[in-house]
């Protein structure tokens, strides 16, 4: 746990122990082809964080990474090293585009102990999970690509200068939001939480989307979310995956505060005088009628493998329903268009949002699932990226809070690594030091991790509990017992 209450820290101090969570030491991007000759090594470096590091130090670190990758390539030409474990830190390598390397160096968690009046640092070498942090690194690239396109495209457009410029602009801000101390299994999955919905309401949403797309022919793709959960994506799965990440961890949390604020709160954005609906833009102008308002929307890049599309991202929200409209970036978005969208979508979306809310409550009452399941579990399906966790309490922009001990989260990660190694369906049951039972199940493309707090139960009882859970929570899917 990273955000310990002050009292706990004091206590740690009392027993003369101090815990330091894992932290980002450095992050750099280089391409060996850009400075092949001696004396030109600096040209290889496209981005280096922290920037204040001395030049020779940078060159040395890049050179080391290059050497390690080169060296390990001799053992496996297609899959060179992905991480390097040292006592103090771990380095993660990723080559997202040919020749472009991204390296992230994470410091191992440290325990500071007092020995004979002197501070002694103990590095916890085995705490970090390779899979979790390589996933974080890969996600860095994907997030960059979503808003900037590929490295190669930048090179084509403006050479190294442009690429460096873009990397600088993006990563300086992005690296601050990494929160390495709270990364876990969910970062490996990078899944999508789907909003449960009955067929009829779902069809109504379909109908709404089709009508809007027909009316606003500029709209190329639409995505529909409710309560930060996905209902429909017109984008392909991989693009939606990263866009979903951006929406739920960055854009939506930034807008929560004004929403929670009362109607008269200064935090609440000015309502543009139209009280017939609750629709508003989360990207673009806050007030449509403000003559000073800038009608600029973030641009995103999708389908980078084939069509390479650049799109405006309009996110529009009414109550808990959010819709992303994606429009070809070559078309300028005029205030008229935004007003048309607002007047067309606003009222419909307001009605739809309250319909969904009503239907959701009815369904919840029928199925009686109002009470939280006693099980703590994480479910992930590789096929549709569906993710469900009762372990994670709430995602805030800063941290994801989990309700279980880090030790147990680590066991989950270990089980996941085991699952990755084989293709077969498996089941792993672990008894943790703290007397918790941890169960991992893999059936076809699905993974389920359950934490049971039944100290005195035996293996058979745990197995039965899992069967019960599967029968109640996953009865409508083919999940081998």
């Amino acid at each position, binding site marked *: 746990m990273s955000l310990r209450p002050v009292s706990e820290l004091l206590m740690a101090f009392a027993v003369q122990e101090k815990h330091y969570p894992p932290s980002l030491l450095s992050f750099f991007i280089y391409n060996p082809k850009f400075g092949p000759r001696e004396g030109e090594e600096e040209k290889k470096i496209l981005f280096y964080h922290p920037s204040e590091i001395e030049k020779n130090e940078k060159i040395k670190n890049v050179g080391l990474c290059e050497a390690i990758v080169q060296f390990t390539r001799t053992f496996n030409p297609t899959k060179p090293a992905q991480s390097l474990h040292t006592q103090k830190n771990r380095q993660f390598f990723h080559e997202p585009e040919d020749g472009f390397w991204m390296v992230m160096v994470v410091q191992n968690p440290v325990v500071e102990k007092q020995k004979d009046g002197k501070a002694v640092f103990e590095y916890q070498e085995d705490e970090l999970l390779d899979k979790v942090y390589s996933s974080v690194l890969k996600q860095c690239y994907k997030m960059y690509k979503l808003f900037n396109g590929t490295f190669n495209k930048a090179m084509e457009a403006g050479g190294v200068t442009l690429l460096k410029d873009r990397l600088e602009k993006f990563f300086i801000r992005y690296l601050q939001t990494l929160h390495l101390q709270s990364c876990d299994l969910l970062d490996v999955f990078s899944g999508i939480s789907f909003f449960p919905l009955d067929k009829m309401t779902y069809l109504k949403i379909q109908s709404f989307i089709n*009508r809007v797309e*027909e009316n606003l022919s500029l709209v190329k793709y639409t995505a529909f979310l409710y309560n930060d959960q996905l209902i429909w994506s017109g984008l392909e799965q991989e693009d939606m995956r990263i866009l979903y990440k951006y929406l739920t961890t960055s854009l939506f949390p930034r807008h929560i505060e004004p929403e929670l604020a009362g109607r008269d709160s200064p935090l609440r954005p000015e309502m543009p005088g139209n009280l017939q609906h609750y629709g508003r833009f989360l990207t673009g102008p806050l007030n449509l009628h403000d003559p000073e308002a800038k009608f600029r929307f973030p641009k995103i890049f999708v389908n980078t493998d084939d069509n390479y599309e650049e799109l405006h991202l309009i996110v529009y929200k009414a109550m808990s329903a959010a819709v992303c409209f994606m429009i070809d970036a070559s078309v300028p978005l005029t205030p008229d268009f935004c007003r048309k969208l607002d007047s067309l979508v606003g009222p419909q979306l307001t009605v739809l949002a309250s319909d969904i809310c009503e239907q959701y409550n009815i369904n919840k009452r029928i199925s009686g699932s109002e009470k939280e399941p006693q099980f703590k579990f994480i479910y992930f399906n590789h*096929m*549709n990226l569906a993710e469900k966790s009762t372990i994670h309490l709430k995602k805030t922009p800063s941290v994801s809070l989990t309700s279980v001990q880090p030790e147990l989260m680590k066991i989950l990660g270990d089980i996941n690594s085991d699952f990755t190694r084989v293709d077969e369906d498996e089941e792993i049951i672990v008894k943790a030091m703290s007397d918790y039972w941890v169960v991992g199940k893999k059936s076809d*493309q699905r993974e389920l991790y359950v934490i049971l707090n039944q100290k005195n139960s035996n293996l058979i009882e745990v197995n039965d509990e899992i069967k019960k859970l599967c029968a109640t929570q996953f009865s409508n899917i083919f999940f*081998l017992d």
Partner: protein
Amino acid sequence: MDSGDFYLELSDRPVLFEKATNVNSVFFDEANKQVFAVRSGGATGVVVKGPEDRIPISFRMEDKGEVKCIKFSLGNKILAVQRTNKTVDFINLIQDYSQLEYSQECKTKNARILGFCWTSATEIVFITDQGIEFYQVLAEKRSLKLLKSQSINVNWYMYCPESCVILLSTANLCNVLQPFHFKSGTMAKMAKFEIELPASTAKVAKISERDIAMATIYGQLYVLFLRHHAKASSSPGAEVVLYHLPREGPCKKMHILKLNRTGKFALNVVDNLVVVHHQDTETSVIFDIRLRGEFDGTVTLHQPVLPARSIHPYQIPIAGTNVCHPATNTEGPSAVAGQIPIPCKLYSSSWIVFQPDIIISASEGYLWYLRIKLAPIVHLLTDKGRLMDFLLQRKDCKSVILSVCSQMLSEKDRAPLPVIATVFDKLNCEYKKYLEAEHSYTLAVESSQGRSNALVKRPVRGQAVIDQSDMYTHVLSVFTDLKEVPHKFIIAVLMEYIRSLNQSQIPVQHYLYELVIKTLVQHNLFYMLHQFLQYHVLSDSKPLACLLLSLESVYPPAHQLSLDMLKRLSTANDEIVEVLLSKHQVLAALRFIRSIGGHDGASARKFLDAAKQTSDDMLFYTVFRFFEQRNLRLRGNPNFTPGEHCEEHVTFFKNLFGEQSLLKSTAS
């Protein structure tokens, strides 16, 4: 006006008769729909033609004076002829019965017979100026028996044969109407009602029978009153007032049809539409009382459904073969030579209109049925929702509705999605009504189990019932095959139709899902398909699961989707095992069959075959041992029975692991 614009027409098979002259009197009987041509009082012949009669009935009768009224009883067995104000004469046309005329004088003294109506094969009503007399005709005795009579001052009367109701006009201004209903020997007085007259200071005109009509509209009897507003009046134009005449209870003013013009009008009712002909402009308008009108709290005001149009021009053929046609006789041989059809004068002052849908031109010797043409209306009524409301109430609407659907999806006349949705919703609403009626009929039949089945009537499937198969065959499958239609639109339309069916709670047929899947697969939209399945928009079924299985090679996740579906169906356990075995997931199959408790009856051979195919010896060992243990549990002996045909697997096992590895029977 282009020829596609006329929405009313005269039937192309008119009834032809000898036109009225001073020697030939023509009568029309509304009950039998027969035209009587009586020449010289019948002495030189009577020719009777009905709508279905290929050969006219002709006979002669003695000329006993001018015929005022002549009608057959229902079934053409007895002929009634009125020649005087006091009596009606009868002639039997039944074999073995005397054909000598017999007559009946009206009972009321000093009364004058206004006319008579047959209400059945043997029952007749005399209407006199002082009341009505209801008789039974005893043909074999050649006499009549009075069943009932009622005295009332009668100005004029009107008969509606479909509902067996006679309407009498009474009171000085003729504005009090008294209906009577007749049914197998009984006569029932219905609630009388008054037609309010304009409270103008000018001398109020009496209500003429020409301004009143009776007709059945949507199964209910209405009295239609044509109210001519004086030009000075503030209200623009004339209107038709519809009084609903229920079998029991008071009569109620329900609808007002606004004509927005004045002049001479005539009314018809065709396919539950009120047609109002206007002689001055030679056009007609139609009204549908089921379409939404303006409700003022008591009555609904209706505007014409469509702009006024003339009846489709009609050509009178001049054919020499037409013996009945008078033209050849009177106009001489020159007319025969010119075979050119002559355009018929429409809205002629010699036209007489009868209810519900008959127009007679006595001067030309034609009887037509008025018909409605639906195809031109499609272009005249641009509001598609209203058009559907209109078409769904019509008798021969199916092909027109389907063509409207095809048209609104076509590239040229494509309708916006909300309009398409409205049309689908209206169609499915009608479809659902029929399904429900069918369902309750089935329930009723089941519960009565043969007892008095006559009570429950099987619902009639009207043309307005456009089911999924109609939509699929005539509209959707054709439309999805068109190359030029963007797939986004195709999918939007299919989803809209599925949404509409779901909204009406109609189970969606598999072929519609297949169409959705086909379209998505054609355009590589697998992720879309995946999402639809995830939200169960495409309902689970075995055929759908199998279709998904077949997609696995192009879209691997289809395998998981298919297995999930089979699992939810809970009747497809065999299929699940087959799927797993085909993927060489022998252990998974075994675990699955064990979890559903099916391993006792499972075919060991099938699993052993699959295990052997994997060339995984340990897997084979495990499976083999599993079945040995099962055998032991079931029969106390691990050996396979000859019926299981596992001999080759036993040999294979022995070769691999040795004889001693076989499980020993506990008994031995």
